[in-house]
């Protein structure tokens, strides 16, 4: 087995005649934050539920840290934290008691649980609520606790299935912030997250695995999804009508693929390389153009829709 933390080999799940996961092969790279994308019914949640042993595979293998979860779920899930959808907690327990329960289950001693619980509660901003019963919590608060319990024991893998589903915009933002912090602070952590929300995936993930009809369509770095044939489209908002001379000047820049007028704006195609974007911003500031805003076209959405069409 390779040292990839998650390896899915010919995984299949059938519900009668319906094939939810169709001989899926997928490898999640170590220390990556991979977004699992795909339309409704693509097989994302089913795959993650097999990985977390909530459902059984019809055939195939799914390795977590080198252990096949279909054969040894206890061993495979030993170093894994999970948040599947929006889980509920025992309403009569407090966050501290819930963490103690989960901590004891995964073999942490009392001192370890106590110390790490405090640390995690701070991370998920729930310290003030640690002794209140979970039955009184809002959905957003419960989801932060769900994320917290997934971090107990410093797992090497975290599996998230639509972790912001059903939350209000504030709740979504809070969860994203927590996830960003986890990603930035952890050195040896692989995260895989399914989501329908493309900006969320763009914001958090560095890789994307696109699934449709239960099979892998594309698996690559996020930059490969964001650019169309290696380019990015940027719209420069200009105060006043941009002159032809100004457009020619931009077009003449050696890293610009094309520049053209788009009403009062200028559509500029450049290389997807982030350093090129930085150069463009600096050069536009030097020109006498009165640029008051730059927006990047959501190429991930375009790619997403194209992939759905192609994989029909």
């Amino acid at each position, binding site marked *: 087995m390779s040292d990839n933390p998650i390896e899915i080999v010919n995984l299949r799940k059938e519900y009668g005649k319906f094939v939810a996961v169709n001989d899926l092969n997928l490898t999640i790279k170590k220390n990556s934050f991979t977004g699992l994308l795909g339309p409704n019914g693509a097989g994302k949640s089913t795959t993650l*539920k097999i990985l*977390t042993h*909530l459902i059984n595979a019809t055939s195939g293998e799914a390795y977590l840290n080198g252990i096949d979860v279909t054969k040894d779920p*206890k061993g495979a*899930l030993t170093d894994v934290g999970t948040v599947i959808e929006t889980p*509920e*907690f025992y309403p009569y327990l407090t966050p501290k008691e819930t963490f103690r329960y989960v901590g004891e*289950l995964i*073999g942490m001693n009392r001192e370890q649980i106590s110390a790490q619980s405090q640390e995690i509660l701070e991370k998920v901003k729930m310290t003030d609520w640690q002794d209140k019963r979970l039955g009184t919590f809002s959905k957003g608060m419960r989801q932060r606790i769900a994320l917290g319990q997934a971090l107990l024991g410093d797992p090497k893998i975290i599996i998230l299935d639509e972790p912001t589903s059903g939350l209000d915009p504030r709740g979504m933002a809070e969860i994203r912030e927590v996830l960003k912090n986890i990603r930035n602070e952890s050195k040896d952590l692989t995260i895989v997250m399914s989501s329908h929300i493309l900006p969320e995936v763009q914001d958090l993930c560095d890789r994307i695995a696109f699934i449709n009809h239960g099979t892998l369509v594309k698996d690559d770095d996020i930059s490969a999804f964001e650019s169309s044939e290696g380019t990015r489209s940027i719209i420069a908002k200009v105060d006043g009508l941009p002159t032809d001379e100004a457009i020619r000047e931009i077009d003449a820049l050696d890293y610009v693929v094309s520049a053209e007028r788009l009403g009062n704006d200028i559509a500029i195609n450049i290389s997807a390389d982030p350093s090129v974007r930085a150069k463009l911003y600096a050069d536009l500031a030097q020109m006498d153009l009165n640029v008051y805003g730059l927006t990047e076209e959501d190429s991930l959405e375009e790619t997403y829709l194209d992939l759905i069409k192609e994989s029909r």
Partner: protein
Amino acid sequence: MMVSDITQVMVVTKNEIIKCVRGKKFMVSLIIVFLVFILITALQFLTNSWDSINSMGMVMSTYFSTFPMVITLVVALLSSIAIVSEFEERTALILFTRPIRRTTIFIGKVLSCAIIEAMMILAYYIMATAVAAAKASDFSAGDMAASFGIAILYTVAASGIAFVVSSFFKKGSVCTIITILLILIITPIVSAVAGNDGGENWYMLDQAGNTLYTCVPGYVDMYNEFSNQFVAVVDNAIQILEGFTDKGLDPGKDWLQAYMATAEFQELDPTVQVSVAKMFAFLNLGTDGNLKAMIMVLKMMTTSSMITPMEYPDVGKEALVLVVWAFVGYIIAWVKFVRREF
């Protein structure tokens, strides 16, 4: 770090107990247990029957003949939701995704339910034993202990059935209702049908459960004493009624007719007059009418199971029946639970 299954069983059991004790259904179960005891005791005072509780038989009859029903209610409230609630309330998404075998979770749940339910039953037995020790002249701690043992086995067996229901259905409330229906209504019906015409029904859950009070010899003796007295009274009544002939009735009819014509009868209270008139009408029907029917009914009563003498139960056999019910129930529930998908 891989944690041993035994450690995880203890963790699950402990937390299931904490979770359950803080829940509303635990409080309701506790209220039922205490309320039943208080109600039975209060009724003894209200009906001036408190002094009649003077033997182990009377203690069992008073406090334990309805106790299997109380146990069933407690089990239906607590055990029937043990598995289904994980799916219905989505807590399985936290617990089942941890490095823990489903079997470990199952054993933890079985143990926690058994411990909590046993504690409630123990509380009832402590109160009832105090009454027995104070009132029963033939008090036997051994009999109470045997009864408690059977009560625990019945609880575990009923809990096994509740777990089966809980592992198949999707709603906790449905599981509670089905468990009550199965144990309190369907099982006694099947048991009664199986026991008709001298059929065997010792293997039924309710029959084995009744052993928790029939295992006390004083109860069986008391029951048989009442039963024998009742049979003797009915036999006497049959003999008296069979002694009546049309010829034998005529003097009585004539005498009543003459009496009803007297001034003394006219001065009687109207309700007494009506009674005498009814008696006269009854005698007029002769032996072919009501008398024959009455004799037939009385004879049927002496042969009905209602007053059939009770045998001392084979406590060991009934305990084994309860163990088998529990074992079968838990095995079916376990097989379903470990395969159940979210």
